[in-house]
């Protein structure tokens, strides 16, 4: 059942992000190096291998061949892998795919370790793991040369074979200041690496190494037992440098997963290629190898316990076990990262928040006819900074996909005029209902009554909506009633006015506001369904996310009968609208900022769920420390208004989203809002409309 998910791993946006992260950190450390060494030598290629190949999917036909190089510049060593141009073995692999996998000059200071695989049948391959915790997909050496590759690395950089696993080579480049900091942190171990190769050198990957002295107080040591003794750990996590190391470790739990899943993917490929059972067994063993990394206490025993699996069903379950085991480790690490650390960590690994996108910069995204040239870059920019208020009127329709990004000025203008007429037609449907007709039209009367009651209870303390007979309140009413005719099955539900209000405030124009609202409802409609299926699937996904990202908190909620997550209901239904309240004007601004960030769907369509996790994590120790029951928790969360710093929470959410990676995405059922529904037809099942 995990097949698709695993296969899609390498196409994952997170994965792409990691590549970008890799290259951006390259720029950083490169400049750092230059400034420290003052060298500007030309680059020298010290190793070159052709036909080094990436297998992005389980299909043998889909392979990307390329050239692997080691380049020396000054004292620094870099690795590159560039796919060959114009060699499309398969139409499904586009140039974009190739770009995704390209490894552009990664300095060895960014590389944590290299794992070598020597299958008896098939090609040798390596998995390169970055210090950031992310791993490149396996690089297959079609023409051999792994040994030579490793020898060259060793010649030019610090490379040591792990004592625990002869196939793991730990890279340690002390040139880099960050690396130096990390190395000094784990000094006892670093010393042992240098002095005695028999002790664990893969310590960063093996937090629970049994021979570690308890006296050194190393963060790694504690992390291994974080699940069991997190109370003891907490006091140790205030040192920023240690936080950094925890970050690396935290990422490492991800690495093992990455590596394992690429391996299990390989297994399937071998299976499909019709390899003999022997090969399968081998692959299974290598699968089992991985859990040793986090659980090294048992590592000597594990290989003996490997069953010779001959049934594919068993294999699947086996893989799932590994997955669970790893998830547990992952959770243990996360447990250590309380809110304060997360803040710092996300500053480290998340990109700093940027000022909002202004008009001049916005112009650079457009071609002469007004098309957005690079949609992804624009979304990314907005994700990290939002937009200036004056631009919202222009950009929100794009973010909500009412206007297409690649539409021209003229096309947008045309659409606006067409849609205006369409809106008038829709509005006329209810405007033409006479009082006599209305008397016989209960549903209409009820809806109209409900909307009338609610628009006067929506953001009325804002100048835009305050006072008697405010025309904007009437616009809210007309748009909502028109929407309830446009989408008669869904109708009107409380919460919609809260979502419409900022849109009207930004768009001003009635018809434009309506169509933006329609687009937003395409995403969020199921939240307002009679059976609230959209809300329930999000609350369910949220519980799953907390389970993988903070299992102690999950367990706490479980024990206290709080797993329905109803206390997050309002956050999700009105998209945190009343949660970011500080001062009223500011609240509105922050709401708009948060919404446009969420609407980019840049890291995830479901970033809002990670925002929930981030907020919960921020208050986790209070929640658990005060033994809050369901009632108290609900009260506590309701009263959080005004105490949340938006930027910090967004950074946390981003970091959590990156960490959860594809495991996080797997927590979220297909069609969960704001994802578009899986089946358009069954979106709003006909319902008894006795609105109260």
């Amino acid at each position, binding site marked *: 059942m995990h097949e698709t998910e695993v296969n899609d791993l390498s196409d994952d946006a997170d994965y792409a992000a990691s590549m970008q992260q890799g290259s951006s950190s390259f720029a950083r450390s490169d400049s750092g190096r230059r400034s420290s060494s003052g060298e500007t030598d030309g680059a020298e290629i010290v190793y070159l291998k052709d036909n080094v190949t990436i297998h992005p999917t389980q299909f043998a036909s889909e392979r990307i061949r390329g050239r692997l190089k080691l380049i020396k510049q000054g004292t620094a060593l870099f690795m590159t892998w560039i796919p060959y141009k114009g060699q499309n073995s398969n139409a499904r692999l586009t140039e974009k795919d190739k770009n995704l996998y390209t490894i552009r000059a990664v300095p060895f200071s960014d590389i944590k370790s290299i794992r070598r695989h020597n299958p008896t049948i098939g090609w040798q391959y390596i998995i390169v793991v970055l210090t950031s915790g992310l791993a490149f997909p396996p690089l297959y050496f079609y023409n051999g040369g792994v040994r030579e590759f490793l020898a060259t690395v060793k010649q030019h950089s610090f490379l040591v074979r792990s004592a625990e696993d002869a196939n793991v080579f730990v890279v340690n480049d002390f040139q880099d200041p960050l690396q130096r900091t990390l190395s000094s942190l784990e000094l006892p171990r670093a010393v042992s690496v240098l002095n005695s190769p028999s002790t664990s050198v893969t310590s960063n990957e093996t937090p629970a190494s049994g021979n570690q002295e308890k006296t050194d107080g190393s963060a790694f040591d504690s992390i291994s037992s974080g699940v069991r003794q997190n109370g003891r750990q907490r006091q140790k996590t205030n040192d920023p440098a240690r936080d950094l190391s925890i970050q690396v470790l935290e990422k490492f739990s991800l690495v093992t997963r990455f590596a394992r899943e690429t391996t299990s993917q390989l297994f399937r490929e071998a299976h499909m290629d019709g390899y003999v059972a022997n090969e399968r067994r081998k692959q299974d063993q290598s699968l089992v190898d991985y859990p040793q990394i986090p659980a090294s206490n048992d590592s000597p025993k594990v290989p003996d316990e490997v069953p010779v699996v001959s049934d594919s069903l068993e294999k699947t379950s086996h893989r799932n076990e590994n997955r669970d085991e790893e998830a547990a480790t992952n959770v243990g690490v996360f447990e250590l990262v309380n809110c304060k650390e997360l803040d710092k960590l996300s500053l480290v690994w998340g990109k700093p928040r940027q000022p909002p996108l202004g008009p001049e910069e916005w112009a650079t995204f457009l071609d002469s006819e007004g098309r957005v040239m690079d949609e992804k870059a624009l979304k990314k920019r907005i994700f990290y900074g939002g937009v200036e208020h004056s631009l919202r009127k222009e950009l929100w329709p794009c973010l909500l996909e009412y206007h297409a990004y690649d539409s021209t000025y003229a096309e947008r203008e045309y659409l606006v005029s067409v849609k205006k007429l369409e809106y008038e037609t829709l509005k006329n449907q209810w405007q033409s209902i006479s009082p006599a007709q209305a008397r016989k039209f209960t549903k209409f009367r*009820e809806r109209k009554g*409900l909307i009338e*009651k*609610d628009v*006067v*209870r*929506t*953001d*009325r*303390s804002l100048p835009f909506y*305050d006072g008697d007979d405010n025309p904007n309140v009437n616009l809210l009413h007309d748009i909502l009633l028109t929407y309830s005719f446009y989408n008669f099955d869904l109708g009107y*539900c*409380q*919460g919609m*006015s*809260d979502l419409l209000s900022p849109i009207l405030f930004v768009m001003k124009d009635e018809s434009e506001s309506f169509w933006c609202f329609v687009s937003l409802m395409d995403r969020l409609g199921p939240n*307002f*369904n*009679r*059976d*609230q299926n959209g*809300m*329930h699937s999000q609350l369910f996904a949220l519980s799953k996310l907390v389970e993988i990202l903070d299992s102690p908190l999950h367990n706490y909620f479980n024990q206290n009968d709080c797993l*329905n997550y*109803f206390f997050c*209901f*309002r956050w999700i*239904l*009105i998209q945190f609208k*009343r949660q970011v309240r500080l001062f009223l004007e500011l609240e509105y601004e922050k709401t708009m900022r948060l919404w446009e960030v969420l609407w980019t769907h840049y890291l995830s369509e479901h970033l809002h769920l990670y925002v929930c996790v981030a907020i919960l994590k921020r208050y986790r120790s209070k929640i658990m420390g005060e033994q809050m029951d369901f*009632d108290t928790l*609900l*009260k506590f969360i*309701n*009263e959080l208004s005004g105490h949340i710093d938006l930027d910090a929470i967004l950074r946390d959410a981003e970091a959590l989203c990156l960490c959860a990676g594809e495991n996080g995405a797997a927590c979220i059922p297909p069609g969960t809002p704001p994802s578009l529904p899986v089946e358009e037809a069954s979106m709003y099942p006909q319902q008894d409309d*006795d*609105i*109260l």
Partner: protein
Amino acid sequence: MSYAYLFKYIIIGDTGVGKSCLLLQFTDKRFQPVHDLTIGVEFGARMITIDNKPIKLQIWDTAGQESFRSITRSYYRGAAGALLVYDITRRETFNHLASWLEDARQHANANMTIMLIGNKCDLSHRRAVSTEEGEQFAKENGLIFMECSAKTAQNVEEAFISTASTIYRKIQDGVFDVSNESYGIKVGYGGIPGPSGGRDGAAAQGGGCCS
């Protein structure tokens, strides 16, 4: 703040009948015609005294729309008292009472004290439900009944306090096992009679009346 007992209340009823306004009038002694509509649930709390015992009322104000019922149902659990509110100027809010009551009976504990409130009695010129009808419904269903106005504060205090008195009497009669919090009652440590200071304390009144 110390209390002898804490009672959990829930306010239910159709949207727009004035649930949030009743709560605000009771906790803050003010009427706010312009306020945000309730999404999910809101809270209020106030100290009262009954039989010289400080009692804290923790009041949950729920969203009224039908769509939210699946969520609001979860708030019934562990409520000692419920205020079931309708709007005397809107007949349909009275007609829906049976369905609300059914929900309450199904999801709350059997000994929950339910007070039926006909709100907006200041708008008698627009009255659509007579006082007698309200009384009749309450009688048939074993509820306490009162007409109130959140706007003028008429009977608001009384409604909350007489509900508390009934719960208190049930405690005295041994109806509840007060150590079991699922009845919506918590035994406090205070138990010191008299006003206990602060806004809440000042607002507290002698209770036990108005039944």
